[in-house]
C-alpha cells in the first residue's frame, strides 16, 4: 500500500516537469513560428493603419489611451461589428442577438466590477447586490407605488438605490485593510439573498413579474442594451486612463505609498466603489428590461457576483475593455457554442476555462491579444 502511494507520489512529482518540457517545446516549435508568421503578415497592416491610429492618438490618445494601427483596427472593427449586429447577427444564428444583448448587460457588470475591484485590488465578491438593489427598487416602485410609473422615474431612483447601497457597504468596509472588505461584500450579498427569499413582500423565490420588458423586438432590445454599455465603456475607460486610474492602481500595488504621496487612499477607494455602483445600477435596470422579472435567481445569487469576476478574469482585470471582451466571450460560449449541453455541463466548462486563464494567462485573454497586437510593429521587419 505504502509503496503504491510512494510510486504514485514519484510519478505525480515528475508530471509538472514533464508538463513544463512539453509546454516549452510547444512554445519553441509551434507558438513561436506561428507568432513570427503572424508578425510578418500583420506588420504591413499595422504600418498601413498607423496614420489613422496616429490621428486618433493626437486627438483622443491622452484621454482614452494611445493605440497602434492593429489595436485601433481591433477596437474600430469590434465597434462596427457590434453596431451593425442588428443586420448580420440574425443571419448567423437565431439566438445571437439575444446572446449579444445579454452579453452587453454582463459587460456593464464586469466593467463596473473592474473599475473598483480590478483597479484597487479590493476584491468584491458581492457586486450582484448592487444590480439587485436597482432591480428590486424598480420592481417595488411598480408594485407598491404605482404600476404605471414611467421608466424615466423608476430608472434614476433605481440607480440611486444602487449607489446608496454601494456607499452603505463601502463607507464602513473600505476603511479597513486586508480581507475584511471582501468578506463584507460576500456577506452583503448573502444577506440580501435571504432578505428577498424570506419575505413575500420582497417577492420571495418567484420574485416580481410585474415589470415590463422594454420591448419584444429582439433587434430593438439589443440596441437598448448595447448603447448604454458602449457609453459606460467610454466613460469608465476615460476615468481609468486619468489620474484616478493611476491612483487606484497605486492603491492596489502599494497603499502606503499613496498616503506618502499626500493622497487619501480611503477617499479614493470609496469613490471607486461609488463609481462602480452607478453603472451596476444601470445594468440592473437593463436586466429588468431584458427579463421582465425580478427574482433572487436572476438578480441576487452570489453566483452572479462570481460570474462578473470570471468575465473580468477571462478578459483581463484592470483594463475595462478586457472585462468587456470577457463578458462577450463568456456569454457567447455559454449560449451559442455550448447551448446544446445542460446548464451544469456548460458551467463546468466555463469555470474550467476561468481556471485555465488564471493559471496560464493571468493577464487575461484580451489583454494578452492587445499586447500581442501592440508588439507587432512595422519596423521589426
Amino acid at each position, binding site marked *: 500500500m505504502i509503496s503504491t502511494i510512494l510510486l504514485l507520489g514519484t510519478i505525480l512529482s515528475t508530471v509538472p516537469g514533464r508538463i513544463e518540457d512539453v509546454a516549452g517545446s510547444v512554445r519553441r516549435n509551434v507558438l513561436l513560428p506561428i507568432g513570427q508568421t503572424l508578425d510578418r503578415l500583420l506588420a504591413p497592416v499595422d504600418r498601413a493603419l498607423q496614420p489613422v491610429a496616429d490621428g486618433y492618438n493626437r486627438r483622443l490618445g491622452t484621454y482614452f489611451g494611445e493605440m497602434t494601427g492593429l489595436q485601433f483596427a481591433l477596437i474600430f472593427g469590434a465597434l462596427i461589428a457590434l453596431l451593425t449586429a442588428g443586420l448580420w447577427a440574425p443571419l448567423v444564428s437565431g439566438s445571437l442577438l439575444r446572446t449579444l444583448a445579454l452579453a452587453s448587460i454582463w459587460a456593464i457588470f464586469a466593467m463596473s466590477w473592474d473599475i473598483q475591484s480590478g483597479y484597487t485590488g479590493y476584491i468584491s465578491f458581492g457586486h450582484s447586490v448592487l444590480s439587485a438593489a436597482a432591480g428590486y427598487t424598480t420592481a417595488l416602485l411598480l408594485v407598491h407605488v404605482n404600476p404605471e410609473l414611467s421608466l424615466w422615474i423608476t430608472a434614476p431612483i433605481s440607480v440611486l438605490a444602487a449607489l446608496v447601497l454601494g456607499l452603505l457597504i463601502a463607507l464602513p468596509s473600505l476603511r479597513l485593510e486586508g480581507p475584511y472588505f471582501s468578506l463584507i461584500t460576500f456577506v452583503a450579498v448573502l444577506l440580501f439573498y435571504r432578505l428577498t427569499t424570506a419575505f413575500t413582500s420582497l417577492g420571495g423565490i418567484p420574485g416580481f413579474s410585474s415589470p415590463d420588458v422594454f420591448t419584444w423586438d429582439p433587434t430593438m432590445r439589443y440596441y437598448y442594451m448595447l448603447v448604454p454599455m458602449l457609453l459606460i465603456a467610454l466613460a469608465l475607460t476615460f476615468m481609468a486612463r486619468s489620474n484616478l486610474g493611476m491612483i487606484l492602481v497605486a492603491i492596489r*500595488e502599494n497603499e502606503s505609498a*499613496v*498616503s*506618502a*504621496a*499626500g*493622497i487619501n487612499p480611503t*477617499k479614493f477607494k470609496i469613490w471607486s466603489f461609488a463609481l462602480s455602483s452607478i453603472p451596476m445600477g444601470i445594468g440592473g435596470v437593463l436586466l429588468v428590461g431584458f427579463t421582465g422579472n425580478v427574482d433572487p435567481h436572476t438578480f441576487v445569487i452570489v453566483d452572479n457576483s462570481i460570474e462578473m469576476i470570471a468575465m473580468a478574469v477571462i478578459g483581463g482585470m484592470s483594463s475595462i475593455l478586457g472585462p468587456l471582451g470577457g463578458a462577450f466571450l463568456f456569454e457567447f460560449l455559454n449560449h451559442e457554442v455550448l447551448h446544446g449541453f445542460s446548464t451544469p455541463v456548460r458551467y463546468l466548462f466555463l469555470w474550467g476555462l476561468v481556471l485555465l486563464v488564471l493559471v496560464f494567462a493571468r493577464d487575461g485573454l484580451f489583454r494578452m491579444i492587445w499586447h500581442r497586437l501592440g508588439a507587432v510593429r512595422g519596423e521589426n521587419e
Partner: protein
Amino acid sequence: MSVLEVDGLTKRFGGLVAVDDFSLDVEQGEIVGLIGPNGSGKSTVFNCIMSIYDVTEGTIQFNGDAITDDKTHEIVNKGLSRVSQESNPIDLYPVAGNIKLFTLPNSIRSLRGGASDEEIYEYAARIDIEDKLQEMPDELPHADVRRLEIAKALATEPEMLLLDEPFAGMNQAEINELAGQIERFREEGMTIVVVDHNMGGLMNLVDRVVVLNNGEMLAAGSPEEIAENQRVQEAYLAGEGL
C-alpha cells in the same frame, strides 16, 4: 523658529516601550542627525511623526500646527515628507510615473492634474536621476532606487524631509554624492532630519546629533561631541561601533 516639535513622545506596543518620553525640536534650515543602535526606536519616532503609528502619549507639532492625530496624507500635504528605509516603488510605472503619482492632487475631481513632464524632469534632476525617467524601477541599481524614493518625496514639495537610513547599502562615493545633494536641499531652504544607525555618513553633513537608545534620548550635541561621548560609545559597545 521650530519647524518640528516633538514633545514627550511615547509609543508602546503592548508591554514593549519602543519610544519613551522623547522630545525633539528642529529649527528652520537645520540638518539634524538622529542616531542610535539597531532597535533603539529611531524609525518608530519617524513612524509616529508620519502617523503610520498612533502615538501613545505626547504631541507633535509642525510649523505650530498639531499633527499628532492627522492622517499620513494630511501631514504630507502640510509639507512634511518622509523617505522610508525600504524602497517601495510601483513596479508597473516607470520612474517618471512613480514621481508623477507623488504630484497628483488629493481630489477625486482632478482627472488631469499633476506635474508636467518638465516638472517631473526637474524633480528627478535635483537628485540626478533625470536620465532614468523612462526606466522601470526593477531595472535600476540600488542607489538609483534610493534616489527615486527621494525624488518622490521632493515631488510633494516638502518644507521638511525625514530621511530614514538614506545611505544604507551605498558605497562611499555614493554616500558622498548623496550627502552633497542633501546639503543642497538645505541651501534651497529645506529642513532635514536624517536617521542612521552610525555616524559614518552624518559626520560632515549634520549640524547636531541626537542619540536614541532603548527608546530614550541618550545624548545630544555637535557631531564631534557625540563622537567622543562616553555614554554613547558604551551604548554602541553592545552592538557595532559608532
